[in-house]
């Protein structure tokens, strides 16, 4: 098995060449306990895959500075116990079963935007087509506890960007992440009215997902179908080897990759101290443009994004704003005029009340001072016309689209 790692096939991360089994070895090294992204970079970056394996097996001597790291806290004993041929077999099977590819920093297919990153993962796992990384890439992130309006916006933005050939990068978490990818996946079924005026060719915006767990560990479980669709139409990447649980510490690490892969990062909704802010910080360190969707000051779910805007982030009110930030011809995005029927004056009263904050039916009744059945009818009409949505009994106004401001 070790000899296989020494033979020549592909790059081994240091300029040498390794064959297919070397990738299994790389995956196995990444799966060793106590070897995080930083140590992995140091080991593979300095020694290459095969030598690293020999070193952790105790079959070769490591240079002084690496040996010092490995002997810290008895780490070398832990990894030697774990670095068995059984682990290699197990890894080979998981990679095969999950159709998971292993990318090393030197590979041609390794995403270019990651290659130059100061904290690039030494070993990257991917499911799907890596061609998406050649597209323009926009990260769409936000809170898991998103409002219905926030999810709706993320979905529209994902769809419109995908329609313009931009790859949506997100984390497949609940809330905004999932909504953005659902939108991106739905672009082919979008209304014909949003097609490009030139109409020559509609580029596919293949979605890119960056996840924290191993690629064969779907988290959250209810996103299994979404996960599958993204892998079929685009690509899912992770630096966690197969079988890795979605441990809490992996999410901030995942966020740095998400930030590094994105050219522009759009925060749709986030609380003041939300996890999205970690991604924003990582993006800022890398000079990635951060944009934010403004929200009501009443909405706690928009507290973080509004703070970003005060700190100087550009606002996003529709996909055109993002296209401009990417330097693309935003006219290709057909400025969709608001096709919704204008609400009647009575319905407008209800809509105005909803615009302030999400409300339950009984709160609307108390707020607008209209007979109960009229409020019920108004809400039914506003919902049918697309001005309001209900989620879990909470009604929210959908005014976020730019055209709505002219109503």
């Amino acid at each position, binding site marked *: 098995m070790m000899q296989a790692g020494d033979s020549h096939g592909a790059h081994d991360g240091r300029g040498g060449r390794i064959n297919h089994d070397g990738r299994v070895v790389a995956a196995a090294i990444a799966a060793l306990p106590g070897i995080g992204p930083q140590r992995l970079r140091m080991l593979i970056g300095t020694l290459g895959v095969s030598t690293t394996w020999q070193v952790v097996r105790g079959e070769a001597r490591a240079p002084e500075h690496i040996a010092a790291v490995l002997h810290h806290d008895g780490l070398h004993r832990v990894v030697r116990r774990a670095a068995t041929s059984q682990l290699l077999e197990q890894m080979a099977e998981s990679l095969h079963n999950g159709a998971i590819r292993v990318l090393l920093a030197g590979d041609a297919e390794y995403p270019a935007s990651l290659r130059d990153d100061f904290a690039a993962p030494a070993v990257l796992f991917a499911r799907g087509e890596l061609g998406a990384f050649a597209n323009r890439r926009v990260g769409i992130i936000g809170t*898991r*506890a998103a*409002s*219905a309006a926030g*999810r709706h916006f993320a979905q529209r933005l994902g769809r419109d960007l995908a329609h313009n050939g931009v790859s949506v990068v997100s984390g497949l978490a*609940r809330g905004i992440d*999932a909504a953005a990818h659902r939108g991106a996946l739905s672009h082919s079924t979008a209304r014909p009215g949003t097609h490009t005026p030139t109409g020559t060719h509609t580029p596919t915006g293949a979605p890119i997902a960056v996840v924290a767990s191993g690629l064969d560990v779907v988290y*959250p479980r*209810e996103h299994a179908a979404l996960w599958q669709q993204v892998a079929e139409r685009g690509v899912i990447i992770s630096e966690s080897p197969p079988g890795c649980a979605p441990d809490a510490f992996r999410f901030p690490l995942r966020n740095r990759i998400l930030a590094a892969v994105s050219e522009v990062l759009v925060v749709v909704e986030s609380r003041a101290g939300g996890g999205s802010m970690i991604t924003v910080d990582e993006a800022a360190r890398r000079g990635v443009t951060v944009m934010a969707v403004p929200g009501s000051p*009443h*909405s*706690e*779910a*928009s507290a973080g994004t509004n703070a970003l805007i005060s700190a100087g982030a550009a606002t996003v009110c529709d996909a055109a704003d993002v296209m401009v930030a990417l330097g693309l011809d935003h006219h290709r995005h057909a400025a969709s005029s608001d096709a919704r029927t204008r609400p009647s004056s009575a319905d407008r009263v209800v809509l105005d009340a909803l615009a302030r*904050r*999400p409300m*339950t*039916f*009984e*709160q609307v*009744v*108390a707020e607008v001072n209209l007979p*109960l*059945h*009229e*409020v*019920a*009818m108004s*809400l*039914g009409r506003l919902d*049918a016309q697309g001005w309001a949505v*209900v*989620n*879990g*009994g*909470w009604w*929210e106004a959908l005014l976020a689209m730019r055209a709505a401001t002219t109503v």
Partner: protein
Amino acid sequence: MFATVRSTTLLGVVGRAVDVEVHVGVGLPGFTIVGQPDEVCRESRDRVRAAFLSRGFAWPNRRITVNLAPSGERKGGAGLDLAIAVAVLIADEQLPPQVADRLAFVAELGLDGSLRSVIGAAPLVAAVRDRRVVVALGNVAAARAAGAVDVVAARDLAQVIACLRDDDEWLADGGDETAPDDAQLPDLADVRGQPVARLALEIAAAGGHHLLLVGPPGAGKSMLARRLPGILPPLTDDQALSCTMVHSAAHVSMSTSGRVTRPPFRSPHHSVSLVGLIGGGTSAMRPGEISLASEGVLFLDELGEFAPSVLDALRQPIEEGVVHVSRARTTLTFPARFLLVAAANPCPCGAGAPGVCVCDDAARAKYVRRFSGPLLDRFDLRVSVGLPRVDDLVDGGKGESSSAVAARVLCARTIAIERNGSVNAKIAVDDFDTVAPLAPAARALLRRELEVGRLSGRGLHRVRRVARTIADLDGAPVIVGESHVATALQLRTGLGVLTGGR
């Protein structure tokens, strides 16, 4: 030598006539009771003998055999004591043979010979109401409530024997059956604001729709629920009798009249066991909370805290209006025609509102799992109750009183029963187009809800039933209009995390 005296025993909530046969004959002195007596019943032996001796009656020093016929069924309770005592006296020829032929005896004996009240007097007496029934003084009201015409009482065994020998008069009074039930029910006028919840209560009362109230702690969910019995239509005589039987059998305190006169309100704590809620038990089958709430309101506060197995057991009685409790020896049927009202918090933190709720995904997911979908589905009305507004609390006037609402409820229910033959909540799916035809706009509204997937087929039927009730309350007894359907849809919304949505 031989005597037969009529008495009764309790099986669940129904009395069964029992013939107490006594044989006094030659043999070693002894006293045995056969015919499946339970523990309490077997102890009659000692009570009857002690009562004889302390009252100075001669105890026959011969072989005494008591048979409780029919002997195939298990007998329970102390209500047979008096009948056994009288039968022994007749068999021993201390009383003439025919004195007890037109009588039935339902009372327990004290060791001093006094007559004691028994549990479940109403259903016990009902089984022998074609005869003159002798009971303890404390059971006279219950016996009358059970429909027995000829009820007499006595203080003790001596008086019973004196009356049987025509040496004394029965006591015939006791318990004022016309005593009004003067306990005040809480009034809806105390509820300030809350127009939606008030409407939901009114609809629930008029149409018999089960109601789920969802709201943060302090919103007044229990306060609202407790006011529902006050607006329900008054009990019919049959309903009152059935309630009285159940309450008597379960030994639940009733008014001085000995009968239930108003729709009951039962609010079991969430630690209630399956048997406590549904009924049953090992020795004596006792009706559960759902039967005590029959014809009234079963209120389950903090629905999420009830054991899921207990809640799921509610589903079948909700559909059938009765509950069949089967045990190895017996299968009993208890009434369970209750109106279910439940209250729950919208999420673990109680806030529920987007952006305010601080529950994380795991906590929400765990909370949602506490509610079974099929049970949530059985609530025709699912409304959110918000915290009362400051304006309403401080400056708001009193709300509409229960009596005004009750008048509308009675009117709407009368219309419904004349039209459908049942309350609206029980409209059969096949009858919708005849008893609840939809206006075109209403039909369009429902079509859209179905198309966007917010409404299931079963949800559609429930919305149509509620809309029917809203229309009845609105004075539209034929066509169900758009506003009725729109309101019904708003009163059956997903509630906080209870929708489970993405």
